[in-house]
């Protein structure tokens, strides 16, 4: 379980990047919190820097788009999903629970 930040510091429409290995991006999509692997599966770019619209995040480099709920790419050029991680809030703190590595297989 990795502490992310205070919930108050992650308002709707915002994201935060965790310098874990691999890095993880945590999003507040209209009040729902999601965590995914931060690096676009197409080419090296941080999805935390991406464009958040509803449950989709668009990569800032080539506009690949991922569904935050499943990690699945919804359009090219990305073809492989990003790993998703459960997020919880306890006492106003946001936590990410790392999904096991085999979740990357797809």
């Amino acid at each position, binding site marked *: 379980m990795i502490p992310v930040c205070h919930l108050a510091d992650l308002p709707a429409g915002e994201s935060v990047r965790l310098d874990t290995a691999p890095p993880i991006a945590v999003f507040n999509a209209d009040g729902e919190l999601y965590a995914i692997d931060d690096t676009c599966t197409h*080419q*090296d*770019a*941080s999805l935390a*820097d*991406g*464009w958040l619209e509803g449950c989709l995040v*668009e990569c*800032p*480099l*080539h506009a690949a788009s991922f569904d935050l709920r499943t990690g699945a790419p919804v359009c*090219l*050029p990305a*073809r492989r999903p990003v790993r998703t991680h459960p997020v919880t809030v306890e006492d106003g703190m946001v936590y990410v629970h790392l999904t096991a590595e085999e979740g990357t297989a797809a």
Partner: protein
Amino acid sequence: MKSVTVIGACLAGLYAARALRAQGYDGRLTLVGDEPHLPYDRPPLSKEFLTDPATADGSADPAGEAPLALTDAEEIAGLDAEWLLGTRATRLDTRHRAVHLDTGRVLTTDGIVLATGAAPRRLPGPAPAGSYTLRTLDDAGALRADLARGPARVVVIGGGFIGAEVAASCTALGHQVTVVEAAPLPLVPQLGEKMAELCARLHGDHGVALLTGTGVRELRADGDGRVTAVELTDGRLLTADIVVTGIGVRPATDWLAGSGLPLADGVRCDAGCTTPIPAIVAVGDVAQVAGARAEHWTSATEQAATAVHNLLAGRTVRTHRALPYFWSDQYGVRIQFAGHRAPGDVPRIVEGSPDDRSFLARYERDGRTSAVLALNRPRPFMRLRRELARPSHATTG
């Protein structure tokens, strides 16, 4: 339309094939590519491919190309196409819509997509061993192998994006690098003088010598035909173990000479990527669309859907007005640019600072933003890029 041939099997060609199937075309589909490889992504060739050991030898694929692959077995099966790789188109007979191949085969089809890309410009004279251009996976593989032999004096000819990226990669690998640029400053046509100057500083920051305002007279070689030095037009002699030339590309249209298609810096098309013959469309680096030719990854991918739509319709029913966009990674800095910059547009830094190599600049013309440039500011860049791309902006701009 019962049969379509796509000439060129890289980014633009693959996207055209995808668009054909996505738009319901269920006829015969043939892709012809002069390289032996399935479609792969070129941008990493000057960057990660040269520097990242995971790309270099961590792959089970002996060519190390798997991380660059643009497609996979599942999609290839779904495209249901005949792939003629390692095969070069030598002539186009527009009257019969027949493509002549170097294997002797002639493909006669109802529709043709020209996606042959561009080839690097070369210096006049012979190219000694140890001198490279960088365009294809095989080019990059050869350069990578040479760079892996140990510390070298590398001279990069051309300070544009490819040259700068190669210089940055070679520096990261521990080589001693000099960049030679014929213009007084690199990247001025793309970025304008002020912003080009800020980007040019990246070389010096990383110990790379940038020599500007001088051309190259010739490459010197030893008795074994291996490069030893670069002689500049101002008389200077630069000792070199490896030379990489990145002085631009020319659209690959030689094979279309005599076809009757209008060729002038690319295959001339209307705004729908359609040539004067509606059954022939062009996409990517080889296409001059509505008077402009783009050499950008994003243009190649975006044009395919429009071109194919018009090909299947038999005439131009859709045009595509994309916002030009390109990016470059150099020395750990991500440079992104979007928009229609014109000479005289005034760049204004609105966020960050050049001293930190992290800023966002708007180019302004008559009080409006014409283009946007970012160094290591992907998020606000993306916001502005979307703003610029909005139709309301385009029609009033």
